[in-house]
Structure formats: structure tokens, C-alpha cells
């Protein structure tokens, strides 16, 4: 396992389960003997607004937020939220993006337009060539529930091999953090996310 620090931005919409995903990541890293700091967003933003969590693991870390242009991974739960998180990207950053849009009220109210998906990918590639996309929503539905988008994306993150944490620790984290009745489905979603992000899936 790598000993260097890993900074992950998890960007999504309030209600998508960003905080659970980051808690599982954080617990797994702590058990792997790493320092962990997670900067979360609670409160008003959770009413369907943008939510960005900063997950940092490694040694000698202090700041609860990641420096602009220095994330190792951006885990985008939604295309436009991925775009909003691009200030944390550099040319080495790996971007994992869920392709399923959640249309914000500004679009349904007609004051703004939702960008075509190819445009979103293009903007990501303006920062880095390491862009992987998957339809986490469809994959989650495929294993039983669209609620498991966060688990699919955790699986996809594992597939990148960028985490300094063994996969078994993440699996254990899922088992411990997810309500019992969703456990099997969550593990299936995690596995499906991992498979979906084999190298040929890169956009």
C-alpha cells in the first residue's frame, strides 16, 4: 500500500449519501493506521444543494480542506457537481464522474441550462486526461436500489487503486455503517461499481 497522502474531493447533491461514503472511507483509512481528516458540509446545503466533502488520508495532515488544484481524486456523484469541484483538479487528478444528472431548480425554473454530458466531460479534460465516467444510477438500480449510488461510486474509487487502504477494510466499513437491511445490496453495488470501472470504461 502506498504511504503518500491522498486527497479526495467527494462532490454531490444533498441527499445522495456523500457523508456516508466519506465516513466509510475515513473509517477504513483509520483502521489502516493512517491519519484521517474529513471536512464535511452540514445544514442548509443539505436541502438539495451542492455538497462537497474533503477526505484526506496519510501522515502529517492538518487542514480540513484540500488546497485548490491539489486533489488526487475527484469523486463526482453528479456531472455538474463534478464541474463545480474542478478547482481542486490538476493534470494528475483522477476524476470519476457519475453520468446521471440531477437537475437543479435553476434549470427546471428555466433560468439556466443543464449542459450536455459531452460538454461536462470536455471541461473535465481541460484539467486532466484521467477522466472515468459511469452511470452509477443505472448500476445501482441494476443491483436493487438507486439509493446505492454512493456504494457504486465507492466501488469505482477502489478500482482506481489510488486508495492507500485495502479493499477489505472498505467492505468492512460498508458492513458496519450501512443499515442491516441494505447491507447485501450495498455490497453488490460496491462490487458492480468496481467492475464498471475497468480501464476500458475510461471516457
Amino acid at each position, binding site marked *: 500500500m502506498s504511504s503518500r497522502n491522498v486527497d479526495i474531493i467527494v462532490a454531490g447533491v444533498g441527499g445522495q449519501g456523500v457523508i456516508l461514503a466519506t465516513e466509510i472511507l475515513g473509517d477504513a483509512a483509520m483502521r489502516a493506521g493512517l491519519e484521517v481528516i*474529513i471536512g464535511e458540509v452540514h445544514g*442548509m446545503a443539505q436541502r438539495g444543494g451542492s455538497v462537497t466533502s474533503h477526505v484526506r488520508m496519510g501522515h502529517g495532515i492538518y487542514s480540513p480542506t484540500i488546497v485548490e488544484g491539489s486533489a488526487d481524486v475527484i469523486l463526482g456523484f453528479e456531472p455538474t457537481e463534478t464541474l463545480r469541484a474542478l*478547482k481542486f483538479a490538476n493534470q494528475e487528478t483522477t476524476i470519476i464522474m457519475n453520468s446521471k444528472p440531477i437537475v*437543479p431548480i435553476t*434549470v427546471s425554473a428555466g433560468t439556466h441550462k443543464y449542459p450536455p454530458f459531452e460538454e461536462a466531460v470536455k471541461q473535465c479534460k481541460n484539467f486532466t486526461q484521467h477522466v472515468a465516467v459511469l452511470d452509477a444510477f443505472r448500476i445501482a438500480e441494476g443491483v436493487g436500489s438507486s439509493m446505492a449510488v454512493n456504494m457504486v461510486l465507492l466501488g469505482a474509487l477502489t478500482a482506481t487503486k489510488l486508495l492507500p487502504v485495502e479493499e477489505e477494510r472498505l467492505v468492512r466499513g460498508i458492513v458496519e*455503517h450501512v443499515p442491516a437491511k441494505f447491507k447485501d445490496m450495498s455490497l453488490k453495488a460496491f462490487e458492480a461499481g468496481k467492475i464498471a470501472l475497468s480501464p476500458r470504461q475510461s471516457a
Partner: protein
Amino acid sequence: MLMKGLYALRDPRVLLQDRPGEKHLLLGNEAVARGALEAGVHVVTTYPGTPASEIGDTVSQIADDAGIYMEYSTNEKVAMEVAAGASLSGARALAAMKMVGLNVASDVLVALGYTGVRGGHVVVSADDPDCFSSQDEQDNRYYALLANIPCLEPSNPQEALEMTLSAFEMSEELQLPVILRMVTRVSHTRGIVTFGRIQKMKTGTFVRDPKRLVNVPENARGSHRILLEKMDRAQAISERSVYNKISGTGEFGLVTSGVSYNYCVEALQLIGATARMLKIGVVNPPPTRLILEFLRSIQEVAVVEELEPILENQVRIVAGELDGRIAVHGKKEGFFPRYGELSVRLVAAGLAKILGRSLPFNYEDIVRKTTEAAKITPPRPPMLCPGCPHTASFRAIKAATEGKAIVATDIGCYTLGFQPPLSVGDIFLCMGASAGLAAGFSRFTNDPVLGVVGDSTFLHGSIPGLINAAYNNHKFVYVVLDNMTTAMTGHQPHPGTGTTATGKLTKRILIEDVAKACGIEYVRVVDPFEHKTAVQTIQEALRQEGPSVVVFRRPCVQIKAPAEIWAGSIAESLPTDAQNDKRNLRSHSNGA
């Protein structure tokens, strides 16, 4: 569409385990709760508010098992009073609130400095630099200065636990309340926390001491001198506190505190600089002798802190004793902003300027490229949930007033109603202000005037404003959006829900009863989903000669209110009032 994700099911009872040395990944606020438990806290009071809410929410879930008395008080002032009463009876007590909550409780805080406390009394103020969930970004360290009481400031969850413990000890030693100043980036940061041992609860009894506790002017004059003497002792504690630490080497010095310390450490690494650093944990009273020693050991100093230049001003005063030998840099010259939250980037940029170094990253390039991406990224403001009863209430208000009313709104999810397409809400200031504001507007306009307030906010801060409206006969309609919970902050119960902080059934305070008792003659309860009745009721209320109250009652879509309460609400108020409404729509009599 709002998507639902899987949520964490973490058992807060993990906090109850008396296993010193065990490590857990905790939010800063959870660490405060654990720290209070380790300190043997007996009473915890709060009014929910981001970023403080998880302190009370965490304690509410373990209170029964831990033998802690915990309550959601009607507002922060009451929370502080209940905690003070417990402390003066010898128990350790903690009152937690967001920073604007301390505005509400400030009357108690200042007086409590004069009387002093007995059992440790910790006041948690969770500040919100960058206004993540607040109407301002006030710096509550000023309250410590104003009230002359000590203030500790942790930089991470581990320190939040340790400083909560120390704050109790310091409070008992000095017989003064102690402020633990959190900020969003400590409260809502998750980090590894090592548990300590859980102390046994201390109990005591109230001891009569009117000279100290009855703040009549004759006593208060003496108490002020005693307070200042206590702060002299606090100064000695601060000078030797382990929370005021010097580290590092070099001729360049950094004075910092709280979350800013983290940014300083990484900013120095980023620009490849070293510094001798003084991290101040006891921000009031600051360790002035230590600061002087520190300044003597360096040639030049920068002060890095969020929001107000409080430490910076202290350092400048102390530096004055060195006859201008040392240059002090900070907000005064514009190296660091006096608004918003800091970050590694902002601190690195300021330090790079001071030290004449270059930044290792091209931020302008990042800004240029993100501006491109931002052009195609639609904004995503928070919004009311699908099926939210507030949306129905706002539609009724708009229909009844044809969108022409001046609306003083208030604090809660429904504040979001000011956004298009609903666009209901012309002003909001602070908790409960809608009643007084509406009264003021009503005196100087011929347009219809409405106040809009949520159930929890009504009970928190609107009642004096409503009594005033009845007493001085201000003509406006006060619409109470009763969704039977404190929704925005995480669905905490309040006096109108009929349940306590620990989930027990209790006396339910009905808003319509309160309104009538305040002297309001026209009071109606309506289900906002009954659109026609809702519109007609607002219109009828607007025709009254004085103030009127319309309660739009329907539970928040995110909760399942206990069945007996919701049933009770229907049985007690809805059908009867709905019938009354029908009757009253014909005759303008006061039938409710």
C-alpha cells in the same frame, strides 16, 4: 428531483464506552459531546443551530444511558439559564449554541460573569465563518472580551474533546463560565479522537449567597471587581496552559489559533518556509507574557486568524513594549482577509507576500479554467423538498395577496421561499424578528403586511413581538408555518411537538393557544394543502382591524410525527377549526 442516498447508521452509544485510549473517527461536535461526558457533565442544554446542532443531537441519544439531563430549550437564553441554575447547584453543565444564539443568550452570559458559577459551566459557541448556514459571520471571541470570561479555541476534534474537559476544570477553578469557541471547520470536521476516562458526575446543592448571586447595583459593583480579579487568575492559567504552545525555529514568527493553525502548518510546507510558531489555545485572556517572550525570540511576526484581528491587536500591543524592534504583519496591511474562512491557499498567499516568496501553484490559471467550467454549470441552491407543506403555504399567501404583500420572513427551511418562483419573503434578520418587523412595516404602508415564521422559531423568539402587536394594535397577518419539527437543523423536537429531547411524551404547547394568550383575537388553524380554505383564511385575516394569526399546520415531509401527536393535532384543532373557519368566513366573528 431529490435523490435519496443511503445514510449512515452509526450507534452514538459508542461514545458511552469507558475505554480510555480507544480511537474513533468523530465529528468535532461529537468530540465535544464525548468531552462533556468524560468531564462528568450532569446537564446539557441547547437550542439547535448549524454548526452547533450535533452537540445536542449526540447527547440527546446517549443522555438516558449516561444519566445526563439533556433538553432542547425554547431558545439559547433559556438554555444558558437552565445550565446556570444547574451549575449554581454544583453540577457540571454545558450550554451549546451557534454563534448568533449567543446574541440571544448574551444577557445571561454577561450577568453570569458577575455572579460567577459553581459547578463547571461551559458555553459552546459554534461560529460560522463564511456563512455556510448563517445570516452573519460574527466573531464570538468578542463575547469573551465583552463579558470578561475565558475562552478556549480548539483546532481539531481531538482538541475539541480535550478542551471541553479543560474548560470544565477552568470554569470550576475560577468559578466563571468558560466559552469553548468552535467554528464550522472544527465542528463539522471528522478526525481521529482518542477517548479518555469518564469521570463520575459530581452533584452538589444550592448554597444561598445573595451578596454574590443577587446582582443589585450595590452587589454588582463589588462583583465586577471580583470578576476582574478572577480574570487576573485566568491570566496566570493562560500563561502556563499547555494549549498555548511554541514550536519550530527561525527568525520569522507566526502567531495563530484554532483552525487557522492547520492552514499555517501546511501553508509553510507549501511555500517551503519555516517559522517559529505560537499556537494560542486560550484566546481569552491571551498569554501576554508568553507572547512577549515569543516576540523577543524572533525578528518579524505574522498573525494568522479567521475573521477579526483580535490576536493581531493583542500582539501589536505587546510588540509595542519592544520599541518597534519587531514588525507585525496581519490583516491591517491586507495580508489576510477579515471576512470568510481562511484556507491553506489564502494563508500561503499572505505568507508568500510577507516573505517575498513565490507560490508553487498558479491560482490564476485555476481560476481561468474554472471560470470556463462555471459558464456551463447551473447554480444549485438549496430548496424546499418535493411535497413540502411550506410550498403550499407560500402559494396560498401569493394567491391571497396577489403577490403584493410585504412579507417579513424568519429563520428556517421556509426562508428559502424568498427564491423564485415562490418569491415570498422580503426581509429576514434573526430568530423571531418577523413579528416586530411586520409591525413596523404595517405603520408605513397601505400594502398588506404579513409575517412568516416557523413553529420552532415562533416559540423561540416571536412571542414578545406578538404581544406587542396585540398591545399596540399593529395590523398584520402573522402566518405560522407549523411543520411540527425543527426541520432545517435536523428535526429536533420543540415545545409544540409534544416530545422531549430524549423522546418522551410531554405537554404539547399549541401555537394557537399561545397566540390567543398573547391577545390575538383572530386565530385560525388551517391545513395548507386545503388551498381554497388557506387562501380565504389569509384574505379574511387581512381584513381584520388588528393583528391576526394563521397557523398553517402540516408535518414536514421528512418526518413521521408520532402518530398520537398528529392524531391529537387533528382531533384538537384541525377539524374544529376547519369547521369554525367555514363559519367564520361568513361572519367576521371571533369563533376560533
